């Protein structure tokens, strides 16, 4: 197989600095929003005592889940030995780290006491899945950084497979931990399910790959480097499989609940009369994030068009955001069933659907986190060789190269 030539991008154009400048403005806006929320208190957000986790948590979970999923591309190369994915592995590891940093930044800046981060890093309750996650997240960054070093330092290449294996197992554990943040909540109808851990893993596969495809297409398009159909079509087919798997898990989750009479009220809320949550589920998660991308990706004609592949990946991300919103906010909006069989009312909104309207500062904080991840990635590919000079078919696919040669020989 050909030796892959990784090279820093030039990054001197007005467009490049313009992009970084734009992301920088969004990051500063996000920081300003966090400062505003912190100094005024959370009453300036849409969150309240009923909906305690809002848009910042949707952004954070979306990015943390995607971070672990985006590493899959590297795992396919190192752990499962698919040579074709090898040129993509460095970017995959880079995005995994930057997305995680972006997500965690949002999470931390939304805390009631972000100034006590040092407390969170030094005082632990090991029965808490949150405390485990602090180790899973920091450990993930260290392991992926080592993994990248093994990949990028030629003397260390022999250890790539081992580092890749550790990173792969760690990322499965990490997403299990993220899913279990909700799965372990016995008190609420929407959660309290072991299914959430594997569901978050498959969600990460899909979200992460969609981000990877979009970032790769954008980077190669903007830098004018060649990106062949062989690798792109393989990635988009894989994305299609993951999107279908996410739909399958959503189906099993709701069918399980529908079988239990005790959960009927909650299912009725999400599937039928939950207003914005019902709309986000059917239109956002199922239609935009599931059915439409599948129709595009597996259609003989549409699936070959680059703009349509990019559109499908973008739709997957829109659906992903809706799905996380329905899980986190929708799950809280449905009231706790403290007294089964009773109609409950109180000054503390017992028995009432939780009301939540995301406020501008919260949304700015979330966008700031996404911008941070994108800015870090875009800067990193300028200073270190993360991207191959070419992802053209003959450079990534040995079979393609051989076949091309064969055809040439036949023609000659």
């Amino acid at each position: 197989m050909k030796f892959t030539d990784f090279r820093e991008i030039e990054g001197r154009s007005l467009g490049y600095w313009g992009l970084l400048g734009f992301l920088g403005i969004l990051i500063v806006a996000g920081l300003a929003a966090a400062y505003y929320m912190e100094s005024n208190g959370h009453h300036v957000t849409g969150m309240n005592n009923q909906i305690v986790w809002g848009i910042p948590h949707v952004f954070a979970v979306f990015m943390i889940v995607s971070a672990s999923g985006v590493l899959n591309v590297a795992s396919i190369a190192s752990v499962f030995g698919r040579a074709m994915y090898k040129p993509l592995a460095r970017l995959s590891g880079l995005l995994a780290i930057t997305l995680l940093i972006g997500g965690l930044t949002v999470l931390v800046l939304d805390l009631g006491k972000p100034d006590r981060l040092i407390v969170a890093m030094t005082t632990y309750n090991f029965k808490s899945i949150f405390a485990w996650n602090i180790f899973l997240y920091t450990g993930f960054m260290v392991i992926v950084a080592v993994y990248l070093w093994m990949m990028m330092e030629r003397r260390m290449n022999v250890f790539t497979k081992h580092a890749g294996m550790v990173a792969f197992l760690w990322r499965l554990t990490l997403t299990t931990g993220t899913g279990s943040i909700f799965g372990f909540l016995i008190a609420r109808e929407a959660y309290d399910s072991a299914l959430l851990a594997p569901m978050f893993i498959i969600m990460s596969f899909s979200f992460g790959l969609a981000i990877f495809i979009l970032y790769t297409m954008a980077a190669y398009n903007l830098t004018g480097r060649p990106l062949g159909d062989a690798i792109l079509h393989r990635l988009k087919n894989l994305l299609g499989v993951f999107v279908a798997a996410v739909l399958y898990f959503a189906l099993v989750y709701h069918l399980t609940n529908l079988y239990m009479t005790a959960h009927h009220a909650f299912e009725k809320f999400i599937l039928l009369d939950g207003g914005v949550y019902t709309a986000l589920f059917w239109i956002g998660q199922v239609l935009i994030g599931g059915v439409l991308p599948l129709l595009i990706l597996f259609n003989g004609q549409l699936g070959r068009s680059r703009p349509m592949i990019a559109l499908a990946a973008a739709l997957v991300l829109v659906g992903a955001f809706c799905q996380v919103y329905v899980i986190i906010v929708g799950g809280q909006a449905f009231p706790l069933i403290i007294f089964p069989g009773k109609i409950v009312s109180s000054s503390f909104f017992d028995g009432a659907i939780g009301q939540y309207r995301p406020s501008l500062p919260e949304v700015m904080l979330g966008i700031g986190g996404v911008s941070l991840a994108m800015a870090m990635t875009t800067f990193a590919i300028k200073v270190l060789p993360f991207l191959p000079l070419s992802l053209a078919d003959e450079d990534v696919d040995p079979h393609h190269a051989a076949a091309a040669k064969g055809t040439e020989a036949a023609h000659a």
Partner: protein
Amino acid sequence: MSLDRRQFLAVGGAVLASAALAPGMRLVELAEARSPDQAVTNAQRWGILVDTTRCAEGCSACVSACNKENGLQQNVRLDIRPQWIRTVTLQDEQTGYVQTLPMMCQHCEEPPCADVCPTGASFRRADGIVLVDRHICIGCRYCMMACPYKARSFVHENLTGQRADVPRGKGTVEGCNMCVHRVDEGRIPACVEACNYDGGKALTFGDMRDPASEIAKRLATQQSEEIRPNLNLDTGVRYQGL
């Protein structure tokens, strides 16, 4: 007798350790009463028994007393206003029977809030009172997600005029602490006191482990139950007439 250095260190260490530990050891358990400098033990388990049949609709003596005792401001938007105790009205879906009862932290023996708290700020004191250490609460609100009784509030606004014996702070989570500052002085919680004076005498406070206490006697001889008993949390607040 001469000691080499190793022996000297061993003997010296043993003497030092004994000197350090001896004052903490007692051969005979003394009286139950606890002075403020003594550690809380599990010799007691504080609890509240609620007789819902005595809880009148429209009465909010316990709520007012709690707000006053703990300095909870009332000029705050309702959806973010901290409520450590609230009256809940229940109507049976089948029969239409209506009843009222107070809801607050149920002071679980196995509190889910303490399980999920990443820093250990939510904790259960040895005598059964569930508290939040405001010094290490980072305001993540995971405990509010985990509480099966919706018993906790997040402080969304700047606070002024806090009570000296009731620490509170913006950006931290709080809830009923069974008036721990009063209990430690040998007094009863403000809600129980108010219910006895102005309300229907629906609340009984006491040590559930002391067989001579009224609450222990009533729990032993009368029907009572926990809310959400299927969660098996062994709550310190029990209800009659549910």
